[in-house]
Every structure is written in C-alpha cells, then in structure tokens.
C-alpha cells in the first residue's frame, strides 16, 4: 500500500475541497500532489489511477515552477480536481498566469536514441500524455490551462 505524503504548512493562497492555489515554487509541489491524491482517495478511485495522477501532477507542477514565471516574476499555480461519476472520468485542471506556453507543442522526447544521445528533455510531458487518456491545453483570460483526464477502469 502506498503511503500518502502529508500536506506541509506552506501558506495556501486559496483552497476548497476540490481546488487549491499555492505559490508556484518547487517546495509546494508535494502539497499539490497530496491535495490531488487525497481528493481521488475520497472519490474511491483505484490506487493505480491515483498513482498516475500523482506522477502527472509532479510533472506539470514542476514545469510550472520552473518555466511559467521567468525574469524574477513570481506567481501561483492552481489545481482543480474533478471526478465525474456519470462518465467515470477523473481529471485535474492546472492553471497558472505565467508566460503563455503550450506543452503539447514541445518537440517529441527522445525515447529511442542510443545512450550517448539520450536526454531527459521533454520526457515529463511525454509521460503525462502516456499515462493519461486525454490532455488538453488552452490559453484563456491570461491563464495557461492544462486539463488531464483519465477514465476509471
């Protein structure tokens, strides 16, 4: 049985039962993961689905923390959790107000090159696309919105 990580005591910009907003800094990534994990546990999602969302949340939150706010700017990241029983579909929606960036337009990751040419660039979003059933990006009202979804089965 996988142990949950515990929420730390970092300042929370905003939170409800299905949405949390935190400063987009690396030390807050475990809290984003934990929040999503606890939500899907409450929804009785299977463990393997929860694990995939934890991995995807780590990749996406890390990207936001590293790239969304550059040039000394700071900002927040928000994650909203959703579980639609009718469609049997779980989703996470990530939002940040940083530089417009569509991760789905990134060059394909290198997954077949030999060892010397192999790099890690682009693997994060490659993994997210691989473990989720649907990944969509939109830029609306000055927000990067990335929605990832997975059918419960």
């Amino acid at each position, binding site marked *: 049985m996988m*142990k949950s990580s515990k929420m730390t005591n970092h300042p929370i910009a905003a939170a409800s039962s299905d949405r949390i907003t935190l400063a987009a800094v690396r030390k807050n990534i475990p809290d984003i993961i934990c929040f999503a994990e606890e939500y899907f546990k409450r929804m009785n999602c299977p463990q393997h689905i929860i694990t995939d969302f934890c991995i995807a949340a780590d*990749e996406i939150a890390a990207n936001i923390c590293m790239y969304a706010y550059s040039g000394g700017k700071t900002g927040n990241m928000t994650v909203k959790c959703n579980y639609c029983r009718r469609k049997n579909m779980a989703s996470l929606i990530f939002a940040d107000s940083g530089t417009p960036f569509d991760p789905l337009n990134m060059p394909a990751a290198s997954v077949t090159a030999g060892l010397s040419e192999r790099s890690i660039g682009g693997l994060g979003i490659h993994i997210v696309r691989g473990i989720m059933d649907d990944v969509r990006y939109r830029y609306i009202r000055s927000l990067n919105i990335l929605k990832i979804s997975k059918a419960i089965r």
Partner: protein
Amino acid sequence: MKANCIMSDSTLTIRLKGRLDTNTSPELDKKLTDIFSEHTVTEVRFDLSDLDYISSSGLRILLGTLKKVDSVNGKAYIENPNDCVMNILNMTGFDTLFEIVYTQDGHTDDEKQ
C-alpha cells in the same frame, strides 16, 4: 523516499523506497554524486522493489548514473520494478537502456536470511 546505498567492491546497490519525484530526486542525486566522487563504480543495481513510482526527475538520475558507469565500461541494472514503474520505463524507452532484472524474492542477496 528512502535511499539505501551499499558499496561492495565496485558494485553499488541502491535500494529505493517510496516515491522518486521532483521533491525527492535532489537528495538521491547528491548521495550518488558523493559516492561516485569517492569510489570507482563499475556496476550499479537499482533495487526498485519498494519504489511506488518514478517521474522524469527520477529518470534523470537513472540516466545520469547509467552514463557514468557506461563511461568506465560498467553496467547498470534495474531490479524488480512494480507495474507502474515498469510502465514508465517502457513508455520512455528506458527499458532498452537498462537491463531489467526480476530477482526471485524481490530483494538482493544481503537481505536474505
């Protein structure tokens, strides 16, 4: 995440427990950097029996370590990944870089009684 590193001759066994992600990778990275600076390592065995999951931050460490041992004509193995970890290794092509080994009891010899 717990990382138990054991050097025996020139073989380094790294037993990982928990989650290897953005939060936990820097700690393992530092540990391995220290070990490689102090020892000649020609074989690395990542024992992932108790690893819950891995993200690209963890893969970065696996790849960096493999490149280090490869530069001295050494070898690196991944042992006993669970289904979730194996799925990530497959989709990123890491299964073609590493030799994946399943040991009978899920742990390396020094834990056998």
